[in-house]
């Protein structure tokens, strides 16, 4: 199937916990890593809250699935686009976002950030290039 590599983009637009979409979308992303496709993630609109630092679900009884985002690098998923306007509108900066990283096999396994800040306009261009876009 290597002749058939497609660009998959998972677009996360909703806050976590209030609905299940963030959690169950992450489960699809992790599975997709096994298919040797080109996979990228987008966090825009309220989706930026999915990768906020310091999530603590102790008092709410919800399952804290935020540590699982840190596994993305191990699955070779290292194109994680974060829309800068979405952060700004919500009073956030990149400092509020988890430090998601991967080890670059082409650069002596140096640890690098998977987070790629993009503007809304750049994101529109990126979406336009995809073969499969799965939003939630």
């Amino acid at each position, binding site marked *: 199937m290597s002749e058939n590599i497609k660009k998959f983009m998972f677009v996360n637009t909703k806050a976590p*916990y*209030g*609905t*299940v979409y963030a959690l169950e979308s992450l489960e699809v992303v992790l599975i997709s890593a096994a298919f040797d496709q080109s996979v990228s993630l987008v966090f825009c609109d309220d989706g930026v809250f999915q990768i906020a630092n310091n999530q603590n679900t102790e008092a*709410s*009884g*919800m*399952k804290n699935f935020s540590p699982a985002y840190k596994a993305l690098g191990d699955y070779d998923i290292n194109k994680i686009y974060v829309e800068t306007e979405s952060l700004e509108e919500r009073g956030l900066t990149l400092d509020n976002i988890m430090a998601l990283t991967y080890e670059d096999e082409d650069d002596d396994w140096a640890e690098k950030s998977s987070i790629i800040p993009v503007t809304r306009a750049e994101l529109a261009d990126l979406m336009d290039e995809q073969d499969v876009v799965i939003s939630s």
Partner: protein
Amino acid sequence: MKFTLLINEGPYQHQASDTAYQFAKAALAKGHEIYRVFFYNDGVNNATRLAIPPQDDRNITENWAALAKEHELDMVVCIAAAQRRGMLDADEAGRQGKDADNIHPAFRISGLGQLVEGGIQADRLLTFGD
């Protein structure tokens, strides 16, 4: 004080049932009474006894069932909403000629009148939805 709770969303997809559960627990801990918990719309899906959530996640139905047992809660599933969505108890399955049923014994099936009556009898009716 007496509360009736109305839950309009199913488990996991929305936080509504979780919030209602935490509210009910806190209310009971403070000595209030839960007059009734009424499950409507997709809320009826909270009553399934067939769910197998991941080991490291909460079991919403079993949480409700345990709370109900401890405090003798009246947990009512709307019959019309339940039929539409494939939630049946053994009686209903028999009457409707269905070959299986799926409602947890901690819940009972009844009509929408139980919601209105819950609003009349309780001091406050709270809705948890999407």
